[in-house]
């Protein structure tokens, strides 16, 4: 089981680190953010390969031996918090994008060409008559 965890941690760490460095080089990610991800994923890889470092670190800060379970529990809470923040931000962006898209659509309504013979009851409105409600 520990071997699977090590392989997974290595693969994910390599993916995230390479992605982060490429994004930094392409100026898509800030220096601070790149350093943050490097530290986080190096720490994850170190814990996967040397689980005892967690106890050493806890003892170093004056705590008692608690084990990996506590760290994973705390990690899970952190992930939930990050997921929530990402959801809120994505939702806000989606909402704004939708509003922008709708306003754009309402301002550029295309009335049918007079060449297209309308049916008797089909109502046409000119661009001027269909203006956005204030």
């Amino acid at each position: 089981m520990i071997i699977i965890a090590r392989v997974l941690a290595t693969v994910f760490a390599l993916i995230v680190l390479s992605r982060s460095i490429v994004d930094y080089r392409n100026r898509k990610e800030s220096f601070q953010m790149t350093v943050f991800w490097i530290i986080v994923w190096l720490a994850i890889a170190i814990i996967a390969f040397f689980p005892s470092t967690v106890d050493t670190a806890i003892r170093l800060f004056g705590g008692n031996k608690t084990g990996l379970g506590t760290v994973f529990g705390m990690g899970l809470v952190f992930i939930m918090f990050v997921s929530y923040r990402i959801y809120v931000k994505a939702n806000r962006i989606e909402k704004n994008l939708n509003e922008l898209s709708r306003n754009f659509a309402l301002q550029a309504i295309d009335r049918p060409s007079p060449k297209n013979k309308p049916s008797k009851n089909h109502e046409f409105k000119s661009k001027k008559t269909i203006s956005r409600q204030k």
Partner: protein
Amino acid sequence: MIEGDQFLDLSLIKLERNNMTHLSIIIPVFNEGTVIKKVINGLPDKIKGVDKITILAVNDGSTDNSAEEIKKTSAILISHPLNMGAGSATVTGISVAKILKADVAVTVDGDGQHHPSDIARVIQPVLQQKADIVIGTRLKKSKGMPGVKKFGNWGLNVITFALSRIWTSDSQSGFKAFSKNAITKLDIGSLGYEFCSEVLIEAKRQKLKITEVPIRVIYTDYSKRKGQSIFNGTNIIIKLIIRKITRTT
């Protein structure tokens, strides 16, 4: 004397205009270039009890020739610059119907699965002021509907009932009619197919009257291919629950 008659005539015309019933047919369109022209041209130009019909085709960021095909028809083209989802396109159509002061709005799918002659039956309860929202239910005449879809629809009916306390036989139907009252009051935030369920949740919140009318469905290979997948059902449920939790007002 002549002037008096003229005045009388004018006032009658005005009165007639005020009583005119205006119907907006809303069609959300996403990559329906092969069928959309036929769908629009197949819509009725006369309906009993309706004086004016406006066709509103909402092109939801299609990447094919849908917009060009719509321009060849008598429909008003409303174009989203990006693909925002069927729900968003429908709400944009409803917004335009509101601006046009439509008395009734009816939504029809752009893939041609709805029978144009059913529009008259679906809007009837609204015209008779018996309902604010009419759902054209496919499941009362469900012959031809794949079993997986029937099961999926039933599951979403249950979820919609749990969230809205309104039971309908086809909560996911895209064939709906809205009264002027509903057009004005509904405040829908959903962008995708979860729109259908949110309409019912909103209707309950706004105390709007809802009824169902059976409709026929034209199942072609094309319309079957364009329909929702079973995986989309899970997505709808998640989005509905999140929307229910995060709704602020």
